[in-house]
């Protein structure tokens, strides 16, 4: 550079000129100083921190609800868990919610695993910060942890008149008495599934998975409560009742033996479905809705049953995280999905158990074939054979998880 360039005249466009002026006003030094100052580093360290003690949480105080001025609601859910229209690439019921209420809904398939999602957001929740979602969908035991830790906002039932439609069996749950903080989204069964061509005789009990001809072609879930729960049921333990270390470790021993003998090929999350398709897995411990979707997307060749000794029953629950500034909007959304007709439409797509009373009658108008589908509207006889894994104390949860992870190779 031999010649210095003359300073350019300011741009003519007023908007651009304002931008340039703003840019010149801030010196680079002050930006760096601000970003790296002691306060910045402190905040960063706090953000990276892990939970902290119970007393130290909630430093920012209760959030004010801005639902009146900001007509938005942000919802984090699992994949394949809301009716989706391939042709228009949209969620029909969600569009209708926006049209009816004027509230713009953002839907994210953010949740792949309860623990992983909790691990991602718990630092912010402990500080009472907005995690960027107004509604999250988590399974019973994790919902229990969220409520216990004070990471959820209490629901105002006056905003959710349809809450009365919640099935009676789900209205009072141990982890959230009186459903003050959570509402069920969908429920499902953990049970046995198999390839009907390779295993024409089918499976009736969990022990059938250990047949020599299935060696190396069996997969079980990495969700402790389903896999260990089903083995415990097979051993005659009521997973919902009072049981302790002896029963848990007896079941874990079976799992360990079947893994080390090579009977169980892999322990997996949702991806066991891919192995059923590729043929690597012929028989699995899996989830009811997955199998329906698999049969729908591929040539139907898989069957799902609850084992004779009983299966597991779990629910995913909607809740409003502590830092959400759009509580009333989130409540409006819950209310919308507790309308029986909307619930029937969702159930017809996701194929999990619908928690809304009256949806079965509404389904008659929507898709008569599904009215008698046991996986969506289970009969009392079926429900009697499905059990909810009892709530664990924090101490038990840590210890059992630790042992389970060790057995599955982690």
């Amino acid at each position, binding site marked *: 550079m031999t010649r210095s360039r003359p300073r350019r005249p300011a741009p003519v466009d007023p908007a651009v000129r304002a931008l340039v002026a703003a840019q010149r006003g801030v010196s680079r030094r002050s930006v760096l100083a601000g*970003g790296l100052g002691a306060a910045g580093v402190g905040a960063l*360290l706090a953000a990276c921190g*892990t939970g902290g*003690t*119970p007393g130290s949480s909630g430093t920012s105080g209760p959030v004010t609800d801005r639902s009146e001025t900001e007509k938005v609601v942000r919802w984090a859910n699992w994949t394949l868990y809301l009716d989706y229209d391939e042709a228009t690439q949209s969620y029909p019921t969600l569009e209708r919610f926006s049209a009816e209420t004027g509230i713009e809904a953002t839907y994210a398939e953010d949740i792949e695993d309860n623990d992983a999602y909790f691990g991602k957001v718990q630092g912010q929740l402990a500080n009472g910060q907005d995690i960027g979602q107004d509604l999250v969908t988590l399974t019973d035991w994790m919902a229990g942890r969220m409520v216990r830790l004070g990471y959820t906002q209490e629901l105002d039932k006056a905003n959710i008149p349809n809450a009365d439609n919640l099935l009676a069996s789900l209205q009072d749950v141990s982890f959230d008495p009186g459903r003050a903080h959570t509402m069920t989204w969908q429920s499902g069964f953990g049970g046995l599934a198999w390839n009907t061509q390779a295993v024409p005789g089918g499976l009736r009990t969990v022990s059938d998975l250990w047949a020599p001809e299935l060696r190396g072609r069996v997969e079980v879930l990495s969700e402790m409560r389903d896999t260990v729960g089903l083995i415990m049921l097979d051993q005659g333990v009521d997973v919902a009742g009072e049981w302790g270390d002896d029963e848990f470790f007896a079941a874990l021993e079976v799992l360990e033996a079947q893994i080390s003998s090579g009977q169980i090929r892999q*322990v997996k999350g949702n991806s066991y479905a891919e192995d059923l398709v590729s043929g690597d897995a012929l028989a699995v411990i899996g989830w009811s809705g997955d199998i329906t979707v698999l049969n729908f997307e591929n040539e139907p060749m898989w069957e799902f049953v609850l084992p004779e000794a009983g299966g597991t029953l779990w629910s995913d629950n909607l809740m409003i995280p502590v830092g959400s500034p759009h509580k009333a909007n989130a409540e409006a959304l819950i209310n919308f999905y507790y309308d029986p007709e909307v619930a029937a439409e969702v159930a017809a797509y996701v194929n999990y158990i619908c928690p809304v009373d009256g949806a079965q009658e509404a389904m008659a108008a929507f898709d008569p074939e599904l009215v008698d589908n046991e996986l969506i509207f289970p009969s009392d006889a079926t429900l009697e054979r499905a059990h909810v894994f009892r709530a664990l104390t924090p101490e038990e949860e840590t210890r059992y998880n*630790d042992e389970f992870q*060790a057995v599955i190779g982690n």
Partner: protein
Amino acid sequence: MSIVTAIGHGPGNARAATSPARAARGPAYLLLAPGIAYLGVFFVIPVVALLVTSLYVPVPGGDVGQFQPAFEWQNYVTVLSTYWPHLVRSFGYALVATLAALLIGYPVAYAIAVRARGRPFVQAMLLVLVIAPFFTSFILRTIAWKQILADESFVVAALRAVQLLPPDGRLTATAFAVVAGLTYNFLPFMTLPIYASLERLDPRLVEAGGDLYASGPTTFWRVTLPLSMPGVVSGTLLTFIPASGDFVNSVLLGNNGTTMIGQVIDSRFFKVSDYPGAAALSVVLMVAILLLVTSYIRRAGTEDLL
């Protein structure tokens, strides 16, 4: 190609001899500031947070995942005594994968850089083929491997037919598949630096070897290989380090008997909510890699090449 060259040979060695004028330092630091700030925010602070977290203890009577600051060095003893087999396994897999990548990558790099020399179009096409896999996410490619090696695939059927696999043998969910996946995924990181080194190989030196009555293999061993060592060292490091921390290949292609240390850290953090344990394992992994790499570079005698 400039990136490739940069991997093999950092500039700057040559310039270090002529010391810059003292007055030029100010702007130099100013230009370095973004880099230093970036490293400060995204490397130093996280590492400090990691070290601090690794010494935390659970809150007495607290809920899952609640910890408080402490100096619990016992955390390191616990994770090391529990997970040393996983550490050994990870480094073992990474070592085998690195050697396999070297055996596959060196001839490829040699063919492109030396044999195809003077044919720029062929060279360019071959290089594109080496880099082409990067155009797709490596997770997708590894999932594709799962299908290719599945029990019902023709690969397994063929191996069974020629008795290389027993009738009930399989490829997925085995250590072999994990190492093969690691080798495949990191192969370009091995090939490109070696290519960059060989590309600059002066053919006159090889000719001189022949003129001095060295046989082909001797010339390769005494001339070509030593001159390509910078590429070999960079390539092995670029393969070994990420391979030992990798967990995608083991998750997708392995099973419970092939768990690598990255999977354990993932499970400690996300499944058990044992944040101090996960942090302590991460520190152990970092230190172990640092020690291994330092002793390797010492032994290779190529400190000045990196």
